[in-house]
């Protein structure tokens, strides 16, 4: 048997071990899947606050006088329209309009964009962008320089505010500010992947352990819990946020994934645009839909979906929804069958189980 390649560890690995987290291989990274339990951690984020180490996520920096042009050539959303200090969800596509990755773009300066990309895609993304760089811009793979912590939940602002002089209430949703957190320079972004209020901070790896402890202390009065990738997944699924490798991959286009809003066809040329225009004219063949199980069981990733007794699609993600107390999931269905309220069956271990397509997101926080 060939030896498995060594897992990459985040600078907080020893903290996770000391907390007796259950560690798993996640895209080549040894990451905590849970500490006290997925349900417990999920509820902490929905009702109070949770802290996640998401340092496996990659960072790419694009700098130079034509950084914005490169950004708009490689990504689907309109990066140059961003204000300085604003962030946006976007996509890197292949020419055929399948996903290279989904990304968060932060405009730091007119000549500087900061990208947060998926862990297992960071090397591929970097090579992809670099290969398309015919601009006066430099592309840097910067994952080693940042630890990313996500502080998420209704008490996230109150928790983080104790550690920073930056007025967090002045940072609007999907904006960010560079400031000091616990005495250390940090990028503080009002973003998240939980469907809850919260922040994602980017800090120097050498300060990670200290800042982790400071956040845990600051959140103690609210009952903060360290949260793993298990809860991150159930939280993002309730919010119907896509996960690369599940809802989106190289075979799926943003239109199919219901991400039309991150595609700006009129902004000028970008990779994948022609294929998207053709798709728009001819119509998409399949569409991502939410479903709720009516029968007993959980429709998991890869399970077949039947409509009218015939195979019609597949489940991309499925889980119990701790907030709704239902079993929910996302699936691809033929576009002409993709209406809410449709009866479908999910093949759960060779048994068809009744389900119904529903509106997404499954969970919306109270504003």
């Amino acid at each position: 048997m060939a030896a498995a390649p060594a897992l990459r560890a985040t600078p907080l690995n020893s903290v996770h071990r000391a907390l007796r987290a259950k560690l798993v291989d996640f895209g080549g990274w040894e990451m905590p899947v849970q500490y006290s339990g997925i349900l417990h951690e999920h509820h902490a984020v929905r009702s109070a606050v949770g802290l996640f180490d998401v340092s496996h996520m990659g960072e790419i920096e694009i700098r130079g006088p034509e950084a914005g042009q490169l950004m708009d050539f490689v990504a689907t959303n309109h990066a140059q329209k961003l204000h300085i200090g604003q962030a946006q969800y976007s996509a890197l596509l292949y020419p055929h309009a399948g996903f290279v990755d989904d990304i968060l773009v932060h405009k730091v300066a007119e000549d500087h964009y900061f990208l947060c990309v998926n862990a297992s895609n960071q090397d591929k993304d970097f090579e992809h962008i670099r290969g398309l760089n015919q601009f006066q811009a430099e592309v840097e793979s910067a994952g080693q320089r940042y630890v990313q912590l996500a502080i998420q939940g209704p008490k996230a602002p109150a928790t983080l505010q104790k550690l920073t002089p930056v007025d967090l209430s002045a940072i609007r949703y999907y904006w960010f500010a560079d400031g000091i957190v616990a005495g250390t320079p940090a990028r503080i972004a009002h973003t998240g992947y939980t469907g809850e209020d919260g922040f994602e901070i980017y800090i120097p790896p050498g300060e990670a352990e200290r800042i982790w402890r400071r956040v845990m202390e600051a959140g103690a009065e609210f009952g903060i819990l360290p949260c793993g990738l298990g809860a991150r997944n159930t939280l993002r699924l309730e919010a119907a946020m896509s996960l690369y490798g599940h809802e989106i991959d190289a075979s799926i286009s943003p239109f199919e994934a219901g991400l039309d809003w991150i595609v700006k066809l009129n902004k000028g040329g970008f990779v994948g645009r022609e294929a998207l225009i053709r798709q728009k004219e001819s119509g998409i063949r399949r569409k991502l839909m939410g479903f709720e199980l009516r029968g007993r069981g959980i429709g998991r990733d890869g399970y077949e979906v039947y409509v009218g007794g015939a195979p019609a699609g597949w489940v991309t993600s499925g889980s119990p929804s701790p907030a709704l107390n239902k079993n929910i999931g996302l699936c691809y269905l033929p576009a002409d069958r993709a209406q809410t309220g449709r009866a479908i069956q999910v093949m759960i271990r060779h048994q068809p189980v009744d389900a119904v397509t529903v509106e997404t997101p499954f969970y919306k926080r109270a504003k």
Partner: protein
Amino acid sequence: MYPENLRYTKEHEWVRVEGNTGTIGITDHAQQELGDIVYVDMPKVGTRVEQGKTLGSVESVKAVSDIYAPVSGDVVEINQTLADAPEKLNEDPHGEAWLVKIRLSVPAEFEKLMSAAEYQTYIGAEK
């Protein structure tokens, strides 16, 4: 942690024998690996099960996992409380949250399973 009076399998089931009846469950290690358990599927009373073959399944928030029969025999009782309270498997896997009772057809199978000490060595090595 792992009671001496139980015997254990490599697939992380346990069995306790009293007379001709074997009580079957999953180990503490198994429930820890699975995390929050949300469903338990068990065979009907009267089902004949064979050692090493699928007995049922447990499903957690994260994943679904088969349970294999540690011994052969006929199912004589299932633990009904788990249908409504599957989380008990996370709380008391070696006790209250047993899964099924079986009338043993090959009692000698029991002796060949791992002892508590052997099982602890086994899961230690697996890590």
